């Protein structure tokens, strides 16, 4: 179907404008000026190298999570357990940081591997619940998220509690040799993590574009029955997608405890798993776009910390802006499809062919079945 280029631009601009308008309305509702708010957001993200580093520090775990979710989305899975998989990575990394004593050049890689395994394990559990026991991944995921979060609170307030007088909201800071190091004072970002993230993006893109596994995932996601008949191991695809996603989530979790913070905290993932789901809903399964949108979202997130400091506004405005954008884009996509479909349907009575074509795209529906 051909589209006028101007139309295509419009399709991008309108959702952005609508979500800006909605957000502005909310800002006005609490008695602030939207312009000031957007200015502070920008300032919060890009006023100097340090604030840009702040953006990158959100971007690293977010991008890792997004790439993981692109794998599961390709396989047709709603991995809402992402948040828990990040937490699990953080837990495993914390355990390693607290118990293993080695020089940093050995310890840090070990911590990251252990964290990745932890995330993959939690992803595996979601996968087994789905493939072996028929529990839909949304509910398995929600349950597992809660379990790991309760367990983290238990660890923080129990076995890993700080000695008397310490902060009850986190464990003791990990020893310095267990932490990731910032590359410089003006740009405090972990170089290793940055490199790992870039590598992860490239690897996921390569997996989806150039490997049999990636193609199997796509086939499984689009039509598991046909995929099976074409020789694709569909159960294995599903399980491996969850595990790969968990692996990247685990790395994201490790980054949160080993760099963003220096200790384990109750809500250490900070909603990054859910935010990543939003990003992937927005970009579909186009892996190239995910890191870019993730960067925009990370900038909004980082910028919003400034709102509290300078305007005493709650930083949840970031979520409002991101959420509205995704919602409007979804609704707008639907509207667009309807508009483009309405035309040929009225010209020729070929409604039957179009309905068979659109049927498989609704394959991800059927949430709780």
């Amino acid at each position, binding site marked *: 179907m051909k589209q006028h280029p101007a139309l295509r631009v419009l399709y991008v601009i309108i959702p952005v404008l609508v979500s800006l308008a909605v957000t502005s309305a909310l800002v006005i509702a609490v008695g602030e000026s939207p312009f000031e708010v957007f200015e502070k957001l920008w300032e919060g993200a890009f006023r100097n190298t340090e604030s840009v580093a702040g953006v990158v520090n959100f971007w690293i775990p977010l991008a890792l999570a997004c790439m993981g979710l692109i794998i599961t989305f390709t396989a047709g899975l709603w991995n809402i357990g992402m948040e828990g998989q990040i937490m699990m990575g953080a837990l495993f990394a914390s355990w390693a940081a607290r118990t293993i004593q080695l020089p940093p050049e050995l310890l840090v890689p070990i911590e990251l591997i252990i964290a990745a395994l932890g995330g993959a394990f939690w992803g595996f559990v979601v996968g087994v619940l789905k493939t072996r026991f028929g529990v839909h991944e949304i509910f398995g995921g929600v349950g597992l998220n809660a379990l790991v979060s309760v367990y983290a609170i238990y660890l923080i307030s129990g076995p890993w509690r700080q000695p008397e007088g310490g902060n009850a909201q986190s464990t003791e800071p990990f020893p310095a040799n267990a932490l990731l190091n910032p590359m410089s004072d003006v740009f405090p970002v972990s170089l290793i993590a940055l490199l790992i993230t870039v590598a992860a993006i490239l690897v996921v893109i390569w997996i989806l574009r150039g*490997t049999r596994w990636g193609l199997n995932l796509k086939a499984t996601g689009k039509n598991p029955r046909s995929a099976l008949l*074409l020789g694709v191991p569909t159960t294995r695809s599903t399980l491996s997608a969850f595990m790969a996603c968990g692996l990247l989530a685990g790395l994201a979790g490790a980054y949160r405890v080993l760099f963003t913070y220096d200790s384990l905290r109750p809500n250490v993932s900070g909603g990054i798993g859910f935010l990543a789901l939003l990003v992937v809903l927005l970009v579909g399964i186009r892996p190239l776009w995910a890191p870019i949108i993730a960067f925009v979202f990370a900038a909004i997130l980082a910028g919003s910390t400034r709102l509290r400091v300078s305007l005493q506004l709650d930083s949840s405005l970031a979520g409002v802006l991101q959420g509205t954008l995704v919602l409007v884009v979804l609704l707008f996509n639907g509207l667009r499809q309807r508009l483009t479909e309405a035309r040929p349907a009225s010209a020729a009575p070929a409604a*039957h062919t179009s309905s068979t074509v659109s049927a498989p795209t609704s394959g991800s529906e059927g949430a709780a079945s």
Partner: protein
Amino acid sequence: MDIQLTNINKHFGSVHANRDISMTLKSGQIVGILGENGAGKSTLMKILSGYQPADSGHIAIDGTPLKFGSPLKALEAGIGMLQQDPLDVASFTVLEDFIYGQPPARRTSGKAATALLRAQAERFGFHLPPDAPVASLSIGQRQQLEIVRLLALGVKALILDEPTTGISAEQKDILFGALRELATRDGMIVLLVSHKLEDVIALCDEVIVLRGGRLVGDRQMPATTHELVTLMFGQQLTTHERPKVALGEPDLKLDNVTLRTRRMHVDHFTLHPRRGEVIGFAGLDGSGQELILRACAGLEHPLSGTVSVRGKPMNGGRYRDFLAEGIVFCAAGRVEEGLIAGMTLTEHIALIGQGATIDWQASQARADAQIKHYNVRGTPQSEIQQLSGGNQQRFLMALLPDQPTVLVLEQPTRGLDVDSARYIWEQLLLRREQGASILFTSPDLDEVVQYSDRIVVCFAGRTTEIADASQVTIDELGRLIGGAF
């Protein structure tokens, strides 16, 4: 009342499902609508009962023209249809389903409805406990419930779509008794859509035969099976010359296989397809042949008995294990099961390839070659759903392994025109010459007789083998398909 249909036409895409069909139906008659699968019977009945609009044509009751927008409108006009898979709600109780079937305006109390339900059920000897969940009923009972429900609505014309599929002989007797009583006593019009000659001969006063969307015959009963078969399938079967292929040893063996689903039992089935042999399965939809074919490829697991490949037991094996042994299954619904909508032809080619990474250039080249070789109208970049049915089927051929051991095919030429069908068979027979055995189903008896060395006829899960397909007569086949052994 009488119902008059005039010049009914209906298209689905490029398929002309009903062409200029006209007929008159009169009170007190039981009319059989006969035709093979795809002849347009179901479409016509759906139009008559308001489930689908006709593209053109008129329906009139007692001379008054009708315009149906929905099944409800048809019901109001007195026409009710019993679908092959009864349209009820599995989670309801019998009574709930019955009450939900009454018009919203009529406030039916539980007690009154129970009484009405019991009275109707008793009249025809139906067994319908009001508190039983619909999910626990047999197909036969669900049909009875639908009939009772439609009668309580006061329908004057009752359409039954393949009502004898999946019900017991006893239930069939009860059903037929009820239908006769409705026609003779209540003066109803009963339309029996069927491809079972036996049923039509046993029940109907008049038979209307459809073929290829056209009304090709209209005959007062009684008529002989032979006459009906001739009407249904066109001219007498012609005997075809088949290239002789030396048959080898069997690779795949089914021994004493028993299969069970909710609807179908196949007991102690044994089959040893030999290399180079083509075995056709004839039978009405849902007579057990689909189940057997799926069991051959590990998609259905036998309750007892053994499935083995070259002496290796494969019971409980997954399809992938069968595929590794060269046993390939192609389903009838190509885009639902077999091809993947949203993926390009190249991606399909790549998917069946080997190796951990994908060489897209090679895949595209291979796709290009296969497209040319199999004469597929499409490009490597086309997504599969953009292809027409015939081209999808050709491309499915292109996806088959070069040296399969056994090809298991559900309706390999479904929905294809004559040329495409012939082409598909050329390709299949080529593989047979290379030593593959072929198992296939087809609703087209001509196709079965033409290509098979051996024929297995299925009726309600029972099987009869015809060892030499070239000696079979259409009468014999028709009789077996209709369940007369």
